[in-house]
């Protein structure tokens, strides 16, 4: 089956032989796993897709599944664009991903325990001390503290890409407050509404079991002496860009969604103010950053947190999820040591590849980077959301000089990696009313509890809607796709 023959909506689909195409092989044949879907989709005209696309958009908008974008003068409400062509991952490929992300999460947890206790990996010279001591995310306050259940990164979001060699690579491990899981579930619902028929032809795993597993994980790390823990989700409030997700998770778990002002600490126990008086809180899934948790310990002017929360946490009367201080391992510089970290704690070889990385803090590697800026992606080590990234082959001569200057001034702040070519996937483009190839990545969600682990069988396939753009973050105009993990036949 060739791509253009029987499907008019693929007329303007130009396969780039330099990139890995998720649905067409190098001879323009549809890959086996996508054949049925491709056939089903060719029954629809371009007009049909246009109509379905609009329906899906207004459905997201009406449901208020939106995020806020802060402009110069006003706040705009935007939907996270949803694409009608789902991404399919077969059972075998998924097995590798699942094992791989679980391995990384466990290694990171062991690494965090070590960093806040004996620090053996540093003493043995495997990870440089400077990486930790210069990190603003290392919290002295929990040095020597044992978090309930021994878990730091209860929730990890691992970002993967498929390179032109057809292999998966991990781009980063998000273990502070990874977001996006609500979109996984919304995308599934939206695709079912739009094209329910296609689900009859594939055996895809459900994604709606995330919330119940999350609640179980939260319950495994309850404080000592608590029988049935009272769990809550804490949010910065309705103006936060991920507020929809916070409310979704609270609702799906059947727990209260609280703000800092709803909680108070008395005698080192945490209570929430309800209509029938104070009620004790045992486990807090927090979606606010460390620095805002407790004005007595961190930013003194933070109104988002709860004064006295850290003392309650350290006394073991409440569990915070993810643990404060995980940010130190959620750092692009730490990422580059992941193969060594996995080997050190688990005595295993990494299942998933790491992108080779150059540390600008090392003089010889800085030299290489300075000479090859045009062939590399240069990233700041501590910025999230796709800001401050420069992609070498997209830069003008002047811009390259500019990057060189920045690197020389502040080498510790940057790392560089070869330009990875993200795989492409057919994506409905409104302007041309056709499917065109666009770059995609994949965020997976891993849960770690005391004696329990879970990887969501599915994930968030993020897609860069602008032609040629490699950055898939929602704040940079990216969209997303439903992602099917197939059951073993």
């Amino acid at each position, binding site marked *: 089956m060739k791509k253009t023959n029987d499907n008019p909506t693929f007329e303007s689909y130009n396969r780039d032989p330099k990139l890995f195409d998720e649905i067409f092989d190098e001879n323009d044949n549809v890959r086996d796993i996508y054949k049925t879907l491709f056939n089903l989709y060719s029954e629809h005209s371009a007009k049909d897709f246009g109509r379905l696309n609009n329906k899906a958009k207004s459905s997201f908008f009406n449901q208020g599944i939106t995020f806020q974008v802060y402009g110069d003068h006003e706040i705009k409400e935007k939907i996270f664009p949803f694409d009608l062509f789902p991404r399919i991952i077969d059972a075998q490929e998924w097995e590798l991903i699942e094992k791989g992300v679980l391995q990384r999460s466990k290694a990171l947890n062991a690494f965090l325990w070590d960093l806040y206790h004996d*620090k053996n990996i540093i003493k043995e010279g495997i990870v440089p001390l400077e990486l930790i*001591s210069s990190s603003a995310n290392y919290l002295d306050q929990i040095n020597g503290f044992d978090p309930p259940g021994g878990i730091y990164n209860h929730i990890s979001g691992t970002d993967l890409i498929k390179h032109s060699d057809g292999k998966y690579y991990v781009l980063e491990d998000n273990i502070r407050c990874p977001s996006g899981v609500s979109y996984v579930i919304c995308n599934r619902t939206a695709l079912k509404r739009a094209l329910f028929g296609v689900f009859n032809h594939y055996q895809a795993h459900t994604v709606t079991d995330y919330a119940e597993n999350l609640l179980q994980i939260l319950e495994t790390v309850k404080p000592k002496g608590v029988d049935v823990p009272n769990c809550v989700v804490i949010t910065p409030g309705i103006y936060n860009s991920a507020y929809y997700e916070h409310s979704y998770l609270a609702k799906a778990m059947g727990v209260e969604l609280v703000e800092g002002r709803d909680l108070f600490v008395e005698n080192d126990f945490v209570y929430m103010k309800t209509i029938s008086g104070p009620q004790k809180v045992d486990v807090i899934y927090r979606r606010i950053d460390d620095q805002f948790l407790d004005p*007595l310990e961190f930013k003194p002017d933070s109104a988002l947190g709860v*004064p006295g929360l850290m003392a309650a946490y350290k006394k073991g009367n409440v569990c915070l999820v993810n643990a404060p201080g995980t940010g130190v391992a959620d750092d692009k510089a730490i990422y580059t040591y992941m193969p060594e970290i996995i080997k050190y704690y688990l005595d295993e070889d990494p299942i998933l590849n790491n992108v080779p990385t150059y540390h600008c803090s090392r003089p010889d590697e800085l030299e290489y980077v300075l000479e090859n800026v045009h062939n590399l992606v240069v990233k700041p080590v501590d910025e999230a959301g796709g800001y401050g990234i420069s992609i070498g082959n997209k830069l003008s001569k002047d811009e390259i000089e500019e990057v060189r200057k920045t690197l020389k001034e502040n080498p510790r702040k940057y790392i560089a990696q070869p330009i990875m070519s993200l795989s492409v996937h057919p994506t409905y483009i409104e302007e041309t009313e056709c499917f065109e190839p666009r770059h995609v990545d994949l965020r997976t969600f891993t849960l770690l509890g005391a004696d329990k682990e879970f990887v969501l069988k599915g994930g968030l396939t993020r897609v860069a809607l602008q032609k040629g753009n490699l950055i898939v973050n929602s704040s940079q105009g990216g969209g997303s796709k439903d992602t099917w993990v197939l059951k073993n036949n």
Partner: protein
Amino acid sequence: MNLEYNIRYAAKNTYENEASKALWQFLIIPENNETQQLISDEFTNSLKIQVEESINGYNFRTYKIRPKERFDEVEFQADFKLIKRVENIFERVSLEYSKDEYKILRSLEFRVTNDVFLRSTALTKLPHQVEFQFDENISLFENLQNLNSWIKNEFTFKTNVTDIDTDLNHILEIKQGVCQDFTHLFIAIAKEFGIPARYVSGYLHQGNGYFGDSQMHAWVECCLPSSGWIGFDPTNNLLAAENHIKVAHGKDYTDCPPLKGVVFSSGKNETEYTVQVSAQQQQ
């Protein structure tokens, strides 16, 4: 020989406009350690609110108070009784010079173990080289004693020229300041050389005419490979000993202010406090 101390801490907060909610945290309770033993502590306030006992981020004991009614003025008073062991610091310190001391100081193991107190903070960052030089031909302890007297000689104790946010740049320029400024400076110079150093907040017995006002005092503790943590008081060019009653330590002042508060009120507010320390020799 032991000393018996009576310490009184009294504070008064006034608010221009009535405040509705608040939470105060007091970091003023003397710690129990090898040389000091707290016998009793009592804490009262004019609003008659029940006092909670808690800890701060570094596990030092704190008092917490949370008023439920509106207020525009509040007074606090704490009384502590404790026994302080009089010790000769020089017995604890290895005075012998040894090159190994410097070797251990630079070992990865030692640096990793003491990492927290080797990091520079905004208040303990040296803006440029200072005149003081370490001499590796004498012991670390001797070097630190020299640093102690260097600060005492070069800088003048003067109140109201600096405040809690003053950085070292300014202090090095005006060559004046109070105990916390000299403590920050000492810490910065020691850390620069690779000696773990921490900020100590506590009470000073002023019977002997030392500087320290009638306020909380500040000094430095440094970790020496051969002798552990030793206290230096650069304001008075002393080793911290029986006249120094420790409350808490941290990386710098921001980790151990005696009073932290979250108060919901508009307008200005003022805090005044005084400290009285009296000692008696125990038979």
